[in-house]
C-alpha cells in the first residue's frame, strides 16, 4: 500500500517553518488570526469554481442539511470585518471540485488576509513585504507591476480590451493555441487561454510580477472603477510563471454584489451547472456595512513549492488526493 507521504520529512519541517514565519509577520503587524467554518450553508456561485457538498444530520437537522465545503473563506471573513474586527488573516484548507494536477490539489492551504483602509495597490506592497519575509534567502530584486493590458500587449501583441473576440482567437492561433470545446464567442475563455499558455509562463521571471486593472468581466468580488473601459480593482501575483495570489479592493455595495451572484447563477443555468445557494448572511453583512478594505488570498502550497524549488504539489503536501 502507498501509505507513505509524498513529501519528504524535511519538506514537512519547511512547511511548519513557513507557517510559523507567516504567523510572526502578522503578529508583528497587529493582524488578528481568525478561524471561520469550513462547512457553510451557502457556496460560491462563480461558474468556474465548483464546491464539494456534504450532509449534516443531527440536532437541528433531523432530515439532513446540505452543507458546502468552502472554496475560500472570503464571505465569512467579510462578515467578521462588517462586525468591526479590524485587520484579520486566516490560514485554512479550502476545497475545489475538479482541480488536480501539478499545481492543483482538490484541497489546498490558503492564506487570506484583509486590511481595512487599504486599496489594492497598498495591499500589493504588503504582499511583496510578506514574500520577502517568508523567503528571506530569495535575492531582493525589484518587482514588476503590469496592467492586464500591458501584459497582453507585451507578451501576446494584443489589446485585451479593444480587440474583437475573433482577433483574440486569431492571436491565439498565431501562437499555436487552439482550445477544443471553447465557444468562439467566449471572450474571457480565449483571454484565459492566452493568459495561461502564452503570458503567464513569461511572468515573474526572477522577480515578482503583479498584474492589475483586470477587465470588468473578470472582477469576481472586486469593485469596478468607472471609465472607458471600466476596470476591476483586482490584482494577481505571479512568480516563476506560477499564479500565487489574487486580491481585490473589495466590493462593498450589497446591491451590486447580489446582482453579480444572480448573474453568475444565470450563467450556471445556461451551462447546466449546479445552482448553489447564495450566501444571504454575507449580503446582510454588506448591507450593514463592510469597511473600505482590500483582501488577498495566497496559495501556501505553491509558495512552499517556489521557496524550495519543488516542481509538483505532491512534493510539498504530505498526502495528496491520490493518497488521501
Amino acid at each position, binding site marked *: 500500500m502507498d501509505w507513505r507521504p509524498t513529501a519528504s520529512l524535511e519538506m514537512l519541517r519547511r512547511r511548519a517553518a513557513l507557517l510559523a514565519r507567516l504567523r510572526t509577520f502578522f503578529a508583528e503587524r497587529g493582524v488578528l488570526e481568525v478561524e471561520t467554518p469550513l462547512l457553510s450553508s451557502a457556496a460560491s456561485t462563480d461558474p468556474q469554481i465548483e464546491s464539494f457538498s456534504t450532509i449534516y444530520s443531527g440536532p437541528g437537522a433531523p432530515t439532513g442539511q446540505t452543507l458546502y465545503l468552502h472554496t475560500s473563506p472570503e464571505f465569512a471573513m467579510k462578515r467578521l470585518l462588517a462586525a468591526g474586527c479590524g485587520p484579520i488573516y486566516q490560514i485554512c484548507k479550502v476545497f475545489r471540485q475538479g482541480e488536480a*494536477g501539478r499545481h*492543483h490539489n482538490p484541497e489546498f492551504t490558503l492564506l487570506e488576509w484583509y486590511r481595512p483602509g487599504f486599496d489594492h495597490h497598498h495591499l500589493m506592497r504588503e504582499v511583496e513585504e510578506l514574500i520577502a519575509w517568508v523567503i528571506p534567502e530569495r535575492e531582493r530584486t525589484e518587482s514588476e507591476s503590469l496592467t492586464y493590458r500591458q501584459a497582453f500587449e507585451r507578451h501576446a501583441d494584443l489589446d485585451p480590451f479593444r480587440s474583437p473576440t475573433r482577433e483574440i482567437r486569431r492571436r491565439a492561433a498565431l501562437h499555436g493555441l*487552439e482550445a*477544443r*470545446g471553447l465557444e468562439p464567442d467566449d471572450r474571457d475563455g480565449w483571454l*484565459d*487561454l492566452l493568459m495561461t*499558455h502564452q503570458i503567464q509562463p513569461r511572468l515573474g521571471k526572477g522577480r515578482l510580477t503583479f498584474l492589475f486593472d483586470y477587465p470588468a468581466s*473578470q472582477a469576481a468580488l472586486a469593485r469596478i472603477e468607472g471609465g472607458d473601459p471600466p476596470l476591476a480593482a483586482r490584482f494577481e501575483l505571479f512568480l516563476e510563471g506560477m*499564479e500565487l495570489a489574487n486580491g481585490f479592493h473589495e466590493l462593498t455595495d450589497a446591491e451590486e454584489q447580489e446582482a453579480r451572484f444572480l448573474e453568475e447563477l444565470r450563467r450556471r443555468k445556461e451551462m447546466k451547472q449546479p445552482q448553489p445557494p447564495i450566501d444571504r448572511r454575507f449580503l446582510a453583512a454588506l448591507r450593514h456595512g463592510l469597511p473600505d478594505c482590500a483582501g488577498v488570498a495566497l496559495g501556501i502550497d505553491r509558495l512552499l513549492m517556489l521557496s524550495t524549488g519543488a516542481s509538483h504539489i505532491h512534493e510539498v503536501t504530505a498526502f495528496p488526493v491520490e493518497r488521501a
Partner: protein
Amino acid sequence: MARYSTNEFRRGLKVMLDGDPAVIIENEFVKPGKGQAFNRVKLRNLKTGRVIERTFKSGESIEAADVVETEMQYLYNDGASWHFMNPETFEQIAADEVAVADAKQWLKEQDLCTVTLWNGVPLIVTPPNHVVLKVVETEPGIRGDTATGGSKPATLETGAVVQVPLFVNEGDLLKVDTRSGEYISRVRD
C-alpha cells in the same frame, strides 16, 4: 464509439486526433484561480510518430482509438519491414520503421512482442520487458572481477549497446531490461 473525457486523460491513453490514432504522452491540468480550466496535452501521432500539442477545455471529450494489443512472434526483418506472426492464427503482418521505432534494437527471432493494431495496421511494437541476447563485441573480460563496480560497453546480437560489468565476455548470454536498456545478469546456456 467510446469517448474519453479530459478527466480520463493519462499517459498511454490512445485517442483519435484529426482522423489519426494518437497516444497521450503528457497531460497537464491548467487553471487560473478565477477562470477557465484547460487540459494541455502532448500526443504522439501513431502513424507518423510526430509529437503534437493540443489544449482542451476541461470537460471536453475525445474519441477513443479502436486499438487492440496482441501478442505476436517476431519472425524476421526484410530490410524495409519487420514481420510478425500471431502464434494462434498464424496470420502474419508487417510493421514499418515508425511502428518498430526504438524496439528494433531488442527484436530477436521467435521472441513474443506486444503489437498494437489499429484497423489491422501495426502502430506500436513493444518488446518483452526482459530479453536474453548474445554479446557479439566487447573488450575482453577481466577474469574473476565480479566485485569492482566498473563497466564497459557491449554490443549485442541485435545491435543494441548496453553497459555491462567488466567480467562479461564475447559470446556470453545477457538478460537485459528493454524499458531501461540496462544489464540485469549473465545467463547460463
